């Protein structure tokens, strides 16, 4: 799937942060730290990123 534009629960736009998150976690950074720095403070938005699986088409 492709990352949702907004958080399913609170409605915050999150898709603009996805590529940055993917890049940084791939380089070995701690997801928790990256999420904090991206400004995702509610657990609804955080779960969206942590549980997301990329499918390439």
């Amino acid at each position: 799937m492709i990352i949702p534009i907004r958080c399913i629960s609170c409605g915050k736009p999150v898709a603009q942060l996805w590529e940055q998150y993917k890049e940084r976690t791939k380089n070995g950074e701690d997801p928790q730290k990256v999420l904090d720095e991206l400004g995702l403070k509610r657990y609804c938005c955080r779960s969206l990123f942590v549980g997301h699986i990329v499918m390439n088409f």
Partner: protein
Amino acid sequence: MEISILDKKDNELIFMIKGINNAIANTIRRTIISDVPTLAVDEINFVKNQGPLYDEILAHRIGLIPIKTDLKAYSLKEEATTKAITELKLTLKVKGPKTVYSGDFKSKDEKCIPVYNNIPLVTLLKDKELVLEATAVLGKGKDHMKFSPGLCYYVNAPVKFKDLNDLKSEDSEISKENFVFFIESWGQLTPKQMFDESMDILDKNLAEFSKKIEKAK
């Protein structure tokens, strides 16, 4: 009633209102979430869509993109006078291989553009094309959440309130008439604009309400 600002960021505003009750606090919250209008794409004319996502899914994604809103220039369709502007046209024309971003949209109004340029919409394979024309209108959060300008919530402040850290302590006595408000903007409007606009709308709604009560007498 007394208002003091506790914290201020680009897209966040925290303030305290003293001397109101739960009903008023909740009215403010609900007015901000569901009555303050913003621009969002509401209709799309697909000319060509050779990408992997169906028209409907792509249209839904495009609708959720926050667009910077100039409330003075645009008016709601149901309240518009004949000369008022109600629509904003955006066009998109891309050819793969490429990931299509919200920044690829060309807006007819340079003030009203997508808030973020790097929202991925769809990935196109080689030589696949996507051509569309989108129409954004002003709308309210109660019609669709894509029109909602942001999030607003409040908590009762402790009686001995000094700064925001006091909200975390659990043993303090809670005041029933002091509220700490958190306004978070999704980017279409600033938090201050959201609050100001909500107050205007609340005024208008209350005036209409008392007029109707008058008639009913």
